């Protein structure tokens, strides 16, 4: 009897014409990254044929988890768990029929429709078999008819039994299609530097950019002893969750306490946050250069807090040497929270630890800081030296 395999169909890549092989190589890399993490290298076999991939030779106990991981990989359009059997044409397709029985019985069990209908769709790539596809389909439909109460309807069918007969002598049989994550394979839209705070927004921003194919590197600012080791561990855990979508995302943790203390001591309290954010942008820009990132990504949403007004963003933006993308700029908090719940970061994000932004929070931050005043206030600091010092203490996770 055959074995279970997972068929992967990819989506938007088709649109990209001559770049197709490049996109495909990224997608394959991402699939392998995800499955290596789950199953270990050698825990599965990756096969490609024509416009499809398949995952084979895995432990059946892991199948549900494999499917779950694959549905999080951008660039995959849909999946199917299929039975792979010999086409067995000389024996009247007996192996295919045997494989169809449990699929048919399962659908019959699950069915809640009145008078359900089905069809069998056969793709015959193996032209050595002299029987036309529709005749094979008719032959196979008999099996479904014998094991279910379904009736045949080629046009308005409720269920579709698909059978791919390949040149290799194998046939893939399946009846269900699972929708994939869509989007573009991560890596095809250059690399971005993500400001990852540990809150609800920034992991969602990572997810959004990854969906459009951007590879990400994350930077986190830590302020020990004002923020704890647990807060840092939380950020690492968030990164690990988000990696299901972003593929490998390096995380750099920058020691930020000294900068905050210097600002606190030398600059007016109402500019604390603006000046702090400007330092973050400077450091993120430097790190982006080292990591070959072409943009900075933040989870900012317009008007959410004092540092997320147009004026505040303008004041911080002038320190970034790169374009800043803010995928959540027009999202309500609820919308962001919904995505965070969907991608599984929400419960971790709301764990209560201080982040560096809440330390030294002034009672009355400037909501509309004026750039020239901010820059004047900054002159009390040795900016280059502070940035250099922070850069030298960066840790990688």
């Amino acid at each position, binding site marked *: 009897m055959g074995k279970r395999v997972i068929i992967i169909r990819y989506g938007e890549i088709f649109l990209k014409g001559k770049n197709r092989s490049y996109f495909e190589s990224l997608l394959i890399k991402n699939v392998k990254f995800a499955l290596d993490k789950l199953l270990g290298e050698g825990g599965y076999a990756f096969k490609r044929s024509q416009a499809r991939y398949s995952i084979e030779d895995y432990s059946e106990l892991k199948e549900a988890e494999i499917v779950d991981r694959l549905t999080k990989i951008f660039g995959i359009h849909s999946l199917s768990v299929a039975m792979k059997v010999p086409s067995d044409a000389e024996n009247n397709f007996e192996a295919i029929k045997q494989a169809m029985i449990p699929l048919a019985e399962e659908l019959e069990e699950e069915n809640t429709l009145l008078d359900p209908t089905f069809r069998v769709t056969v793709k015959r790539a193996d032209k050595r078999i002299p029987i036309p596809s529709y005749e094979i389909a008719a032959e196979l439909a008999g099996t479904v008819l014998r094991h279910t109460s379904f009736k045949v309807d080629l046009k308005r069918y409720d269920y579709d039994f698909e059978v791919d007969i390949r040149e290799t002598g194998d046939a893939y049989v399946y009846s269900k299609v699972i929708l994939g994550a869509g989007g573009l394979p991560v890596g095809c839209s250059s690399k971005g530097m993500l400001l990852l705070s540990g809150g609800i927004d920034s992991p969602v921003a990572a997810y959004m950019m990854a969906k459009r194919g951007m590879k990400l590197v994350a930077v986190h600012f830590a302020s020990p*002893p*004002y923020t*704890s*080791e647990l807060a840092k561990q939380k950020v690492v855990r968030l990164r690990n969750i988000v990696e299901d979508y972003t593929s490998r995302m390096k995380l750099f943790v920058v020691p930020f306490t000294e900068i905050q203390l210097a600002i606190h001591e030398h600059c007016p309290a109402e500019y604390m946050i603006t000046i702090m954010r400007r330092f973050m942008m400077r450091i993120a820009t430097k790190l982006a250069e080292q990591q070959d990132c072409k943009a900075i990504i933040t989870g900012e949403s317009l008007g959410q807090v004092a540092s997320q007004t147009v004026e505040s963003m303008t004041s911080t933006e002038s320190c970034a040497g790169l374009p800043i993308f803010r995928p959540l700029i027009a999202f309500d908090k609820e919308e962001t929270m919904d995505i965070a719940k969907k991608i599984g970061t929400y419960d971790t994000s709301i764990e209560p630890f201080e982040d560096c932004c809440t330390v*030294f929070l*002034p009672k009355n931050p400037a909501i509309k800081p004026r750039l020239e005043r901010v820059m004047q206030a900054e002159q009390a600091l040795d900016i280059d030296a502070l940035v250099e010092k922070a850069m030298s203490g960066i840790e990688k996770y």
Partner: protein
Amino acid sequence: MTTDDSAKFIYLDNAATTMMCDEAAQALSEALSPEFFNPSARYKQATGMLERINSDRAVIRAALGGTFGEVYFNSGGTEGNNTVIFGAKGRKGSRIIIGEGEHDSIYAPAMELKNNGYDVCVAPINTDGSVNFDKFKQLLNENVSLVSIMHVSNETGAINDIAKFVRATKRVAPNAIFHSDGVQAFLKLPLSVAALGVDAYTVTAHKIHGPKGIGALYVKRGAKIKPLILGGGQESNFRSGTESAPLIRSFAAAVRYCNENFEANYSKLTQYREYFAQKLTQYLPDTVIITPFDNSIPNILRVAFKNVRGEVLLHSLEEDNILVGTGSACASHHESRFKQMFGLDDEHIEGVIRFSFSAENDQNEVDHVCERVAYHVNALAKTVRR
């Protein structure tokens, strides 16, 4: 008592948990593999284990002074407390009184009962963490089914005069069950549950240099408390689940260790704390001492520093390998419950730290610790929010 890097840190958070003593660690490791039999089985390897469990039980009962009742093993303090609250709640609508400073494992189950139609009352505490007796008395009536007052406050180390509370309760509500959470008190002060007169008393091993995952509930004979966990009927039908003989053995070893050194450690800790507090206030005169020295166990010292946040100070000291606690008072879900309790002003209310000692601590380290505390408090006070 050693860990691989015990020389590298000064541990002052013994009210949170303690390092296992050598005796307990050895007892555990010796029993772990060979004593795998199910104590409920009928062959002699198993019945022998049951016998040893019962002799370990006798050790713990003796240490409690539990002549009038029995000791049932469970998974620890949280289970003991839950068992009593849910097992002695009485009829719906009855009054249940708990202390304001009770541990979450009393507080949360009691609030669950409150949501389910019980008349749950919270007896206020004094600013030193002990329960206010007069206000407690006002809550008593004949409808009281259960009272739970902790023996020693985990926040401040303050001792409640449990015998007095029991007498007052029984005068008004003779059938009420009186429970005391003794997790912080057990082997930290001279103790007899018989003398206290309680119906139930919770203890756990990991606060007395034993392992995590094992504790016991003392239940006075005749006290009606229903089991929380049903099943195979172990522990005389009071707590089902296969007994962990190795953990019980280790628990008993820890009890023996603490008992043997009780007198010596008690006076050592008393002196240590005196000296510690004296040094601390020398370095930082603005410090408020919350713990009442005339009525507390000797190993807890809760203080409030001026113009610092407790958790930030904790992390600063951590960098000097000095490990302290903020106590549960700083847990965010507790804020409303504890913030105002110690009667602190705005400058001190965030700066609460709990130092808790064990006999392993050495008076020679006090100077170093206080000097580092003073350094960090002074440095951090400069960054107070403007």
